[in-house]
């Protein structure tokens, strides 16, 4: 699904919010009747889903920032965002 969507712009619908909260002990994604704790890697990915950057740009940015192989980053990003989109918590 994402392979031909590298130019798509991932964004959260209204009602899905990434917040850094002391009460929750770090980054969490708030969603209807749900709360997902974001680990360090997931948080870096989700922070970049601002509704401005394309999927390709997000992967490039992460690869550069963390000096990691682009393919591995691409796999992590694709897996996380596909999963969230299947849960209808992210628009791609």
């Amino acid at each position: 699904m994402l392979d031909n969507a590298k130019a798509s712009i991932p964004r959260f619908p209204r009602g899905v919010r990434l917040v850094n909260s002391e009460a929750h002990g770090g980054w969490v994604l708030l969603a209807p009747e749900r709360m997902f704790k974001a680990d360090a890697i997931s948080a870096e990915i989700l922070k970049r889903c601002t509704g401005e950057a394309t999927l390709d740009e997000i992967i490039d940015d992460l690869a550069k920032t963390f000096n990691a192989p682009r393919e591995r980053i691409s796999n992590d990003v694709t897996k996380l965002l596909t999963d969230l989109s299947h849960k209808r918590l992210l628009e791609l």
Partner: protein
Amino acid sequence: MQVHLSGGEPGARRDLVEICAAAHDAGLYTNLITSAVGITDQKLGALSDAGLDHVQISIQDSAPESADHIAGYRGAFARKQTLAAEVVRLGILLTVNVVVHRANIERVENMIDLALALGATRVEIAHAQYYGWALKNRGALMPSREQAAAAIVQVEALRKHHHGRIVIDAVIPDYYARFPKACVGGWGQRSLNVTPSGRVLPCHAAESIPELEFWNVREHALADIWQNAPAFEAFRGDAWMQEPCRSCVRKDQDFGGCRCQAFMVTGDARATDPVCQLSPHHEDMEMLAAQQTEIAYEYRRLPKSQQTG
């Protein structure tokens, strides 16, 4: 942390928008749970501007006549469709809540299709829980064991079928179960309810247990109530437990089940939830579930003296 603006019907509350705005400003995730009757499009717009995060609309059936009959309100079905469209137009995520019982359990698939047609991204399939008004109508609402089992299998299949289109969350009926549910995630552990009069309850049905003493937000700070109110202290932790709960390996998983159900069936709020097969009252539960009658639904109504125009 999440705030559910629920009821009864939250639309009956004149200060609903102010409550929503205050919760939003406090950094809480705000969720409106409504029958749609009593929330006008205009009211929804005001809630939306106040920072409302999510809306849940309940439906009674996929067939309009049956839906209005169960709701006891003509035109309810049409009102739900109109409000759902407005929620979607405002870009707010929509959950459709379906309460399943004997009159609609054969149409679970149609109701999920309806949720999709209304633009919902999530649907909650909850089997009726027999407290309060559902308890008064239990004979007319309780599905058979076979119907309940078939519905669970069907929901599982539909979840796979609709993967990626709509999330299906199911609340499994407990009256045919062998172990109780972890009611409210543990008494005084994760949630509290504030009633319209300001009383703070550990669960929405807690007022059915006569021995509990509730504190009111007009007299105590919420944090004080959470930590010290007698009703919260009553069943927090496991000091209150009797056998078979006290020595049970599952006591940290299900917390002895539901206190209100234990009281309702056994007369002792400290008893093991009779849903549990280890409860000496487990057979009573099965007998209650087996009592099915064809009676007209009984609805909650305000006494005439309290009705206002």
